[in-house]
Structure formats: C-alpha cells, structure tokens
C-alpha cells in the first residue's frame, strides 16, 4: 500500500458571549422554553430589519487580534441564501466578501518545537434555530430561541496533518477564546462546533486531494474518531481506484461512521450578495489600538508567570492555565491568602482527581476560592491533619461547604482526633521517660507537666480532659 498523508482544515463556530442576539435584543440564554426568546427580527417576520450588536464586532475583533489576524477595516455583511426551516429568513446573514479578520495564525506544540496553523479568516454570522423531531406526528418542530445567536466562524488553512494536531489546535482556540472573554467554548453545549475538512494524498504529492466536510462532531473524542474513520474511508476508495467525492458528511459517533448529507433539493449555490439592510462596519485604527491595549493575559503569558512568580513547575502551570476558569480560581485562592504552591497542589491534585472520578469538567466546578483558601489555612494552622483535609475537601468540592463549620460540625479537628492525640502523647512520653515513670508510680504531680507538654505539641488545640485520659491510658499500658 502507498503511504498517505492526511490534510485537515477546520471550520470552527464559536458562540459569542453576548447578552443579546447579533441583530436584535432577544436574550441568548440557553435552555428557555421554545420560542420565548424571539421577536419579529429573529423569526423572520415580514418587514423586520436587523441592527448589529456592537459587542459582536468588538468580540470578533478581539478574537482576530489575539489570533494574529489582519483586520478588514471596512467589513460588510452578506446574505447566504438557502431554504431550511431552522433559518427563518431562508437566508443567513454572514460575511463572505469582506470578513472582519483574515490571514492570522496560532502556534501549537509539535515535538520539541512549535507548529504554525494558519487562520484563513474569521467572520461574523447568525446561528440557526433548533429542529426537533416529533415522533408522534412524524414531523419536525422548530424553535427559534437560538436563531440569531451571534457566532464567529474561524476558518483555518489546511495546515493540520493528524488528529493530535487538530485537538491541540482546538484546545488552543478554546483557551484563547475563554481567556479573551469571547466565548465559553463548550463543545458539549454547542458553544464551540468544529467541522473537519479532510483530504488525503500520497506523501510527496504537492497537490491536495478532493476533500470532504464532516459535521456533527460534539467532542474531542468524536473528532479524533471521525478523522481516523474518514482517512481510512478515503484511502480505501483511492486504493480501490475510486474517487473521493467532494461532499458534506455527517458523523455518527455511536456507529463510528459517517454518511453523506445529500439531497437533490439542496441548493449548492448560496447566491451570496451584500445585505442592503446593514451598512458596513468601519474599524478605525483607534478601535484596534484600544482592543489591543485591553487584551487580557492569555494562557502562554500566565503559564510563564506562574512558573516565574510562584515557582510552580511547568506541568502544574500548564494544567492550571488550560482553562481560564481554573486559572481564575487559582488566582482568587491566592488572593484569599493561600500560599500559591499549596493552592496549586489542591487544584492540580485532588481537584483533578475528583473531576475525573465524577466525569466532570472544569466548567462545572462549584466551590469558591474563599473556601479552598480557608481549608488550606486550617491545615497550615494544624487544626486538621492532611488526611482529614482530603475528606473536608471532598465536601467543599461537592457542596462548597465552609470548611471551618464543617470541621466543627463533624468533630474533625485534631482535638477530637484520637489517633493524632495518641501519637502526640506517645511522643511526649517517649521524650520524657522520667516523668512517665513517676506518673506510673502514682506521682500525680507530674501529670500537669506532661499535659502542658502535650498541649504545647498540639498547639493548644486539644481537649484537656481527653489529653488527661490519654496520658493515663498510655502510662498504664
């Protein structure tokens, strides 16, 4: 068999973090009752007109500058015409001729070094409504709550060669968008969606092969599977002397297979033309300069700073900065008084373990920085032992409990901890064999001395009655 190379380009749709839709004032919130976040504009009522949400242009610009793009300082909206019920106007307002950003790149880790993935363009557009199949009537039901939710589409160059590179690229985009506050970029919830354009060619061939576009990829796992599956399918076709057909294919993660989405009624011709309802957007030098100046610290910068400023190792710094939410939690924990290394340990250790165990993501973390900092403080002060601390953390992790209250309510402080007390008393007795012997002989006068020593060892956090009992029971053994 010949040796093949896979050539992959991505079209990534990112839902922008705005309060309202791109062309009207309806809310973008997820999960409302059907057709409640709608108005004449986002349901395509006759006579309704679009007006651009300023924040959409702002966020698209922020994304483009962070991804090293050039900016079309005059950009326009175009209509993409096609009939489908999720699209109430039967045209989608998008950008074809003059997208807001073009010709950028991101760098992904590759072996020892870095690899540059080109960004062909970023354009603004509106999302479509939601279609649900109704079994009872064997029909489709249409909900326009999502119709008009703002998106940017980030179109890469065909610069990726493996599923690993694709995932590294997506993680990079995800982190950047989160740090920039452009989007929360959740694959599962659909606020980040990736379509994979893939072709194969014989190694050494300078020409690209015919590509297909894969849709419906809802997780990194599905993306990896789809890339592998489509690579094999195309190679098989070529090996059999057949041709790859340029088409859109839908990936079915359950079947781990794809099928062509074809219909003779599908308009392949979108008849794009400039939308006469929307004047152009002019992005001044001042606007660009302001957005650049306001750009927040991105992952790479934070990662380096954590190592330098807090002395974290590269692995921990990387883990903490993979997602903006975790980095923010880390920084807030430090701000609440926790030593950076201790905070990092909890967030890279127990937190990750529990997330994995409960199959959760960083975005689902419920506990507050204040409570993690309080827990660290309890350990530092010796109120609880490290083993107990893990138990307390589990409660903080699942219910964001106040650790101090929790320790008190459950009697978990060292003063109530039999084994800790026993250990402390044993130590004191061993260190003071003379006093121990005298007590054994009934000289109760030394009891005061031994109790004092034990209390000091326990930093006063012990119940004197219990200490007395413990000393007696150990001396008598």
């Amino acid at each position, binding site marked *: 068999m010949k040796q093949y190379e896979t050539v992959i380009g991505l079209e990534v749709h990112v839902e922008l973090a705005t309060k309202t839709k791109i062309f009207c004032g309806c809310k973008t919130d997820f999960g409302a009752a059907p057709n409640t976040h709608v108005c004449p504009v986002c349901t395509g009522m*006759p006579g309704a007109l679009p007006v651009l949400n300023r924040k959409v242009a702002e966020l698209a610009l922020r994304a483009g500058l962070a991804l090293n793009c050039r900016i079309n300082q005059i950009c326009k909206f175009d*209509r993409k*015409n096609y009939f489908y019920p999720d699209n109430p106007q039967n045209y989608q307002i998008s950008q074809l001729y003059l997208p807001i950003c073009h010709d950028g790149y991101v760098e992904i880790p590759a072996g020892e070094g870095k690899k540059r993935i080109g960004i062909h363009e970023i354009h603004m557009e509106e999302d479509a409504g939601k279609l649900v199949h109704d079994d009872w009537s064997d029909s489709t039901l249409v909900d326009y709550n999502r119709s008009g939710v703002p998106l940017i589409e980030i179109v890469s160059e065909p610069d990726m060669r493996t599923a690993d590179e694709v995932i590294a690229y997506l993680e990079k985009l995800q982190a950047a968008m989160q740090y920039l506050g452009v989007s929360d970029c959740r694959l599962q919830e659909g606020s980040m969606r990736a379509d994979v354009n893939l072709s194969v060619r014989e190694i050494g061939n300078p020409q690209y092969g015919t590509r297909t576009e894969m849709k419906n990829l809802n997780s990194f796992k599905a993306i990896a599977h789809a890339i592998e599956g489509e690579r094999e399918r195309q190679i098989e076709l070529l090996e059999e002397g057949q041709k790859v057909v340029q088409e859109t294919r839908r990936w079915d993660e359950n079947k781990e297979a794809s099928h062509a989405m074809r219909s003779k009624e599908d308009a392949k011709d979108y*008849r794009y*033309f400039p939308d006469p309802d929307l004047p152009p957007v002019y992005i001044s030098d001042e606007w660009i300069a302001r957005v650049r100046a306001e750009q927040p610290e991105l992952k790479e910068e934070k990662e380096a700073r954590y190592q330098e400023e807090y002395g974290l190792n590269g692995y921990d710094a990387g883990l903490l900065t993979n997602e903006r939410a975790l980095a923010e939690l880390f920084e807030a924990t430090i701000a609440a008084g926790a030593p950076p290394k201790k905070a990092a340990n909890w967030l890279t250790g127990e937190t990750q373990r529990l997330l994995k165990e409960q199959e959760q993501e960083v975005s689902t973390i419920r506990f507050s920085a204040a409570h993690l900092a309080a827990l660290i403080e309890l350990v530092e002060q010796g109120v609880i032992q490290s083993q107990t601390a893990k138990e307390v953390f589990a409660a903080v992790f699942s219910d964001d409990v106040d650790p101090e209250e929790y320790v008190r309510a459950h009697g978990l402080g060292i003063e109530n901890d039999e084994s800790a007390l026993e250990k402390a008393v044993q130590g004191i007795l061993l260190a003071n064999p003379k006093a121990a012997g005298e007590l054994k002989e009934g000289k109760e006068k030394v009891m005061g001395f031994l109790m004092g020593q034990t209390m000091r060892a326990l930093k006063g956090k012990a119940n004197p009655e219990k200490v007395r009992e413990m000393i007696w029971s150990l001396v008598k053994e």
Partner: protein
Amino acid sequence: MQLTELTAVELGNKIRTGEIGAVEAAQASLEQIGRLDFRVQAYLTVEPEKVLLQAAEVERGIRSGALTGALAGVPIAVKDNICTKDMKTTCASRILENFVPFYDAEAVVRLKDAGLVVLGKTNMDEFAMGSTTETSAFQTTKNPWELSHVPGGSSGGSCAAVAAGECFAALGSDTGGSIRQPSSYCGVAGIKPTYGTVSRYGLIAYASSLDQIGPIAKDVRDCAALLEVIAAQDKKDSTSMARPDTNFLQAVGQSVKGLRVGIPTEYLSEGLDDDVQEAVMRAAGYLKEAGAVVEEFKLGLMEYTIPAYYVIASAEASSNLERFDGVKYGYRAKEYEGLHDMYKRSRSEGFGPEVRRRIMLGSFVLSSGYYDAYYLKALRVRARIKQAFDEAFSGYDMILGPAAPTAAPRLGTSLADPMKMYLSDIYTVAVNLAGLPGLTVPCMVNAEGLPIGVQLIGDCFAEKKLFAAGAGLEAVRGPWMQSDLVRGEEQK
C-alpha cells in the same frame, strides 16, 4: 363644500379648533368609502369599528391637549405592504392572505402617535411588483377619474383612495416609481423621500436598497405635513438617517425665484406621449412664472437605468421573498410530500406570475457564474448613474420631467407584455437607484379626462426645495379639479 373635499391640513386645522370632530371626520371618510369604494375598489381592508374607536380616542387626546399636531384626527389610508398591528397586511398576495401582524411599522407608529386615524389598507400590485395595481391577487382597483382605466401602481389603491376622497391622505411605498407614477395617473400629489428618511421597519421589503415609504395626498402642502410626521431616524432600521431638516411644512410657500430647474433632453425624446410632453411644458411655464429659471440639459446614462434597476430589484426581491415559505406565517399548500415539496407548492400557489418572474430573474442574476456579469455590473452602473445625478445637481437645484410616459392606460392592456411594462418605468427608476427624492404634482387633465402629473427630482435631502417648487407650481396652476366620480356625476 363637502367635508371630504378638505385637504388634510385644512381638516387638521378645523379639528384643532373644534369645528370638526375626529370621529365626525372618520365617519365622513367611512361614508365616502361606503359610497364609492365598491366601484373604485381601492381598499382591501376597512374595519369601521376599529376606526371609530381610534377616532374617539384621538378626539379625547385632542381635547385633553395631549395631541397638538397639525394632522391630529385626520383619517389616513395605508398601503397593504406596511404592517399594521392587529390589522391584516397582505401585500395583495395569496401568500399573506390571512397575515395579521402583531407589530406596527415604524411609520404607522408615528402616524398613530401624531393622532392620525388609520382607516384601512389599500390595494397594490402584489408585493409592489407592477405598474397598474392589476397584479393584486384580490381585486382590480379602478382609476377614479375614468373607471375603465388603471390607477397605476404599485401604490394604486392609496392614490385612488386619495383621488376618490375616500381618505384625506395615504401612505404608499416607492421602489421604482410606485408612488410617483400612480400619483400622476390619479391626479394627486405624492413624494418618494430621500432613501433613509422614513424608517423601513415594518415595510414588507421588495428591494431593500430602493424601497422608501412616502406620503400621497391632495396637494403638496399635505405631502409636506405628512412627511414631517413620518420622517425620523429609527433605531430599528440601520439604513434610516438622522435629518435635522424635517420641518418640511415651512418650505411650502417659500419663493422659488431664481431656482434653477433642468429638464433632461432625454426625457422629452421618443416614447413620450404628446399629452405628457405638454404637461411638462406647462409645468415649466408655471415654474418660470413663479420666478424659476428652466432650461434643458443632457443628463446622460438614462438608457441604462431600467436594466440596472430590474437586475438589482429582482436580485434583492428574490432574497427578500424567501421568508414566505409556509412555515411561520402565510399560505401553506394543502397537500405536499415532504419539506421541499411544501416549499415549492406553497410558493408556486401563493405567489402570482409577476412575483414569480422577478424571483426567478433575481435568483438567476445572483447565481454563481452570473453574479459578476449581471449583479455587480448593475451595481457599477448604479454608481455611474448616481454620479450623473451628482453632476446634474451641481448645475441645477432640481430636475423637471414626466412621472410616466403616458396618462393612465386602460384596464387589462398592460400585463400581457411584461417587458413593455418595465420600459414604462423609464422616468422613475433612476431616482430610486440614486436614492433621490421625487415629487409628483398634478398638472393637467387630457382630452380623455385623465389627469397627468409632472415629477420634480431633487438632490439627496433637498425635499424642502421640492416642496417649495411644487407648491409654487400649484399656486400658478390654480385650484386642482376633481374627478366626475367624486363630483357625483354618473359615468357611463
């Protein structure tokens, strides 16, 4: 003198002084509709109970001092492509036969806020595509001057209603002459304002870059008063503009002495009826008498306006009319198999032939392989046409010309040859391509008893000059007459 013979401004004055009540005025209009509309058929929808309720509310508003506008209490008709809350809005199309908007167009909001009373919705060419109001899916509106003739179009219902005294003023819309041409045919005044002057929110789009709502009334002063009410920047229409100079009434009566008026020589060449030529010459005479300087000049490029217009208008229409698909509102075919069959049947049964024709042409000129050659080419030609007007307005304050090549044609003679119908838009489409204001003023009545108006075209934002000149023209012309029908004389 009959109440319905008053102009809108005259009526407004009498209502303000309490001489006439708003309810009384509405009743008079409703009576006139009852008396004449079964013959003129200008209205598609009239809901007398709602009209009287609104009139009563307005009357209270006027008495309480809340409504003080010049036109408060004046009954008005609205073209049926302008959305009215809780009142059917059909675009004279099967596909919207039962559509009842839950929102008012911004222009209607402004009418209601100013205390005008909406009588009902007027007939039109389906989706404003046509020049005779005969492409309406529902009825044929007659020209009140001669019932065997068309009122023109597409705002034929609004113009006929004004001419028949079935309202005191009306809103129309103009994409390629749809206010100015029927105004000429019906002997009424009508203005297409500068693009962006009146909000298009709630105007069911035909061609978004060309459409404008405008007033139709008995005289120029009424047009100015009504435009003053509806002209405003609207946050809901990104193409609407803030204008500091919307006190249009002020311009009426201002001197036109020294005004430079140009008549394009191309406008007086072949294809123009002698009657219309005479009307233009008479208008030129009136303006001169009023002190204006009138001369002929070469405008240029006019032969390109119709092809450029039909490419651009059809392209935008093909996209604008995609939303009529039987999903969210409007007509859905009774029987169908699957989604695309439902689309195709609903649209084929719901749209009339002229609308289908333009949708097809528009789909073609935007399709890949033809986009550059037709659509972009037309947009480049549009830029040159705008330049030609810019040059003209560096030498002239305004342009005088016909609004249509003939007086109103007979019913049933225009639709057979669509191409010929398109060519008759020669004097109006350029104004839309360049976004200019254009005012039609009634000028004369020909031997057949049909009125003929002339068109004054101004530079962008020069409505005030047009109103001054139009009113000056009217003053020299003398009082306008009424059709036999309105005078109550039986026609054959």
